[in-house]
């Protein structure tokens, strides 16, 4: 089952993207985007994982002891923060769209309005 984490990442990506493509509600669309983003966390953490290794916190273990890769964990941390703020920005846009157009349905937003 060593491919399972990678399969989970691919599944999250695909299912989130399917949600975005078929979305009928802007809030739903933002949530789907965060599902897509979470696939990158799973992928990054899965790449850096080492069987039997501990977390890269060297408080009770000596330096050089087997630990999982701290670099991908740092990248994931960055990713999570950016995802949270991007979601906030998109939700703010959705609020504005609803005020201007009176709808959350992306299909009804097919004309540009100045």
């Amino acid at each position, binding site marked *: 089952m*060593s*491919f*399972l*984490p*990678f399969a989970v990442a*691919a599944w999250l*990506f*695909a299912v989130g*993207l*399917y949600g975005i*493509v*078929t979305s009928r509600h802007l809030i739903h669309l933002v949530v789907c985007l965060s599902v897509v983003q979470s696939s990158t966390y799973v992928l990054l953490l*899965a*790449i*850096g*994982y*080492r*069987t039997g290794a501990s*977390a*890269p*916190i*060297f*408080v009770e273990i000596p*330096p*050089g*002891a*087997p*630990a*999982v*890769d*701290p*670099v*991908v*964990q*740092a990248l994931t*941390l*960055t990713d*999570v*923060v*950016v995802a*949270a*703020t*991007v979601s*906030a*920005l998109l*939700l*703010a*846009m959705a*609020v*504005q769209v609803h*005020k201007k157009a009176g709808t959350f349905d992306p299909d009804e937003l097919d004309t540009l309005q100045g």
Partner: protein
Amino acid sequence: MSLRGRRNLFALGVLGFSVLFLWGLNGLPAFGHYEGVYGITLNRVAVTQRHATNLVAAVTFDYRGFDTLGEEFILFAAVVGVAILLRAQRDEAATPDEEDEETKDESRDAPHTSDAVRVLGLALIGPTVLFGLYIVAHGHLTPGGGFQGGVVLATAALLVYLTGEYVALRRVSPESVTELAESVGAGGYAAIGFIGLLTGQAFLTNVLPLGMTGQLNSSGTILLINLAVGVGVAGGFSLILAEFLEQTLLVREREHG
């Protein structure tokens, strides 16, 4: 494009993606057998080099510090974007006779919350603030850091809103303060980077005394950047929360009166 057309396009895209993904997986080491030189080397040398025991923080704020600086500015830009987007509307809504904010405050109360929520929330505010500060300050030693602790601190602002009302939130974290915290956090990060330049080395070089490994006062600039990021993230997320709560009140007001 019709829903059907989009579905077909999606199927085509997923097909292409799975081919590329499988091809990419082919070149990866099997799960659990990571062989990246960078990570393994860091695990060996980082504690001696930087005197920080949480290597994730060491990578985020030191080895890849420049990258995180960019990320801090992404956060800053997104927060400013949220504020600009939501504030434009707020000004439109404000009619001249609403200038007397104090008398309007009665109608701006949050919907009635149950006593259980109030008591529990009130009891949690203090521990949440303390926990947030602890997470920020110990980022270089144990799991945590500025980003995580900052979000915990912003949760405290949300608890104030839950237990009291919006007015109380405005009093506890007024916009001028959260905006200042957000800017000081982002600017402080860059300023700490300049310490390296002042000593004639590269931007964001860890030039401060490293201290004893495992002590709170150790790891040089990693601790300082953690604190700056903690202030910035707490301010930024409080600002986002306040803007969204302000919006709900605006919308509610428009619907009821």
